[in-house]
């Protein structure tokens, strides 16, 4: 059975109520920020966070980690899957929430503002714009055609007069350059501050 530390530093089993609650208290804001920086919307991020923890709760018996970092990685794997699904389908998965009958709280405008502030969204938006401006024109155009216009790689290649492999490489490099702006680096063990938010 996997254990995690509660707020007092005691080891508690994740399948015990105290264990899951401790995990939630420690990681909820991090997961919320993680989601917010990817979907750029506080309400959607809260929905994704709620579903992430609901799925974690339902699958907590299968968690095999023992460290805080492993628990966080486990949660982020679930969150990434939710975000990817949301991006792909344009709709939120709320099956686990429904099964547990958990209702996502409604956010008041000041709470939305606060989440955006904590996730650093205003700065992130500016940073993304700056990063986009820093991309070379070939990469920016490939990214626009693939991500914004949602054309196939074949179409992107035709449009830019390059091979499909080159089109994929340009889009990939552009996304890697932008992704650095998205990753939060919160303190876990030994770190003292968040960097590269």
């Amino acid at each position: 059975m996997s254990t995690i530390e509660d707020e007092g530093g005691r080891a508690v089993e994740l399948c015990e109520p105290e264990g899951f609650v401790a995990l939630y208290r420690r990681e909820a804001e991090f997961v919320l920020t993680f989601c917010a920086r990817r979907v750029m919307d506080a309400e959607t991020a809260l929905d994704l966070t709620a579903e992430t923890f609901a799925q974690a709760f339902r699958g907590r018996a299968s968690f095999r980690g023992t460290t805080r970092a492993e628990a966080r990685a486990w949660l982020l794997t679930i969150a990434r899957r939710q975000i990817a699904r949301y991006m792909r389908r344009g709709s939120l998965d709320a099956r686990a929430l429904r099964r547990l009958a958990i209702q996502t709280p409604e956010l008041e405008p000041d709470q939305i503002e606060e989440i955006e502030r904590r996730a650093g969204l205003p700065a992130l938006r500016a940073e993304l714009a700056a990063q986009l401006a820093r991309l070379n024109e070939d990469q920016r155009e490939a990214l626009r055609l693939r991500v914004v216009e949602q054309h196939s790689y074949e179409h992107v290649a035709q449009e830019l007069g390059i091979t499909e492999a080159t089109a994929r490489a340009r889009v990939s490099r552009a996304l890697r350059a932008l992704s650095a702006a998205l990753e939060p680096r919160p303190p876990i063990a030994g770190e003292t501050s968040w960097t590269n938010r």
Partner: protein
Amino acid sequence: MDEPLKALDELGAQFERIAHRDAARQPGRRPGGLRRGRVLALALPGLLVAAAVAVAATGILTGAPVRNAPGTSFKATTGVGKPGRAKLLALRVVDPDGGPPWGMSTVTTTRGFACIQVGRVVDGRLGVLGQDGAFGDDGRFHELPGDVLTLAHCLQPDAAGHLFIGVTGRSVPASALDRGCAVAQPPPLPKAFADRLGSHRAPTLPTCAAADVRILDFGLLGPRATSVTYENDDATVVKTHVDRPEGAYLIVRRPSARRPVTLGFSVGTSPGRGIRSVGYDGAPRCVITSGRRIGGARGCPLVGFVRARPEHITAAQIATPVRATFAARRVRPAPPPPGVKVARVWRLTISFRARHGGDARSNYVISIRPRRHSGCDYMTIAPLVHDVRRGAVVREPIDLPGTCHGVIVGTVAFRPQSRLAGQQPLVPDMRGAVVAGRFEARIPG
């Protein structure tokens, strides 16, 4: 350090409650059992093995399926549900007392209407529970077959087949069947009427215990609805995602001072006061601002509604001679129950040739009124409650009070399918109707 976020705290409190509830369950006990003391559980070893009941995988015994209440018939209006066309939606909502969750199904009827039906869900089947007086409090689960409509509401779907419907503030027993106890007692009948019915009044059901009543708000908001917000029992506003693509929502609450038990409820195309707002894909959130009258909140736009394109019918296309004939003597309307006095009536038979087919959506309507200064205080608008084949001769009997005398006049009109949302089956309404023929007849005597 920043204060904890209020929304995360609220969410965390829910997880904490669920974690403790989950831990408190006995080993081996599955979630979702019926209320203690009201069910026969699988744990009773071998007790009912030989009985003619099925034991569901959840450990809840299954009893006989629900049947339509005696005397009810949906054939004439909505048609009956097609068993193969009932679809249980994925939506599940916990009951405040626990037990099998609430769920909702959609049913397509033989006359082209779409209905929603709510109940409790066990093993992926919608049904009711044998409690609150239903099924003699046998504690079993009773499935609702697709052709049985109870706690169901039907409207015409849009041209794309999507149903838009909102039911507001329906008080029901927690059993999900309104035949075991009454959530409230109807007002007493006028004495003269009660005396006439005598012992043939419908038996009065006992009033449900307040703890056994639920207030339901449910409906379908269409394919572009994403979420609804509503006020919880503790006055917090919560958001819940609707079930897509139907846009289904179902809210189950206990009665409270703000949501008292009542026999009244509303049905419309838009949700009423039970919810506060509706979120859509690609359309502004609709905030429901007023709840002062039942279902009287400002309607939300029907985002995604596809209008029907009914055939344009002209009077010339359907013009037909109409014959109106009274029976020579007054007759008894229908075999009354023994001992009940029913006044004799004048039976008028209207006959005409239908030059256009009619069904539950596009139908013939007969209207009758007395000619001015005639001796009959009577008017009626009667839609034909059966399908009519093009070219068929229709003979429709209509009963008028036996006290009438003088001359009546009337029309036979054809009402094409409405382009608007929420057309109800066979509502007496002449709007948009095209007159096919007129008639006049003198009441004998």
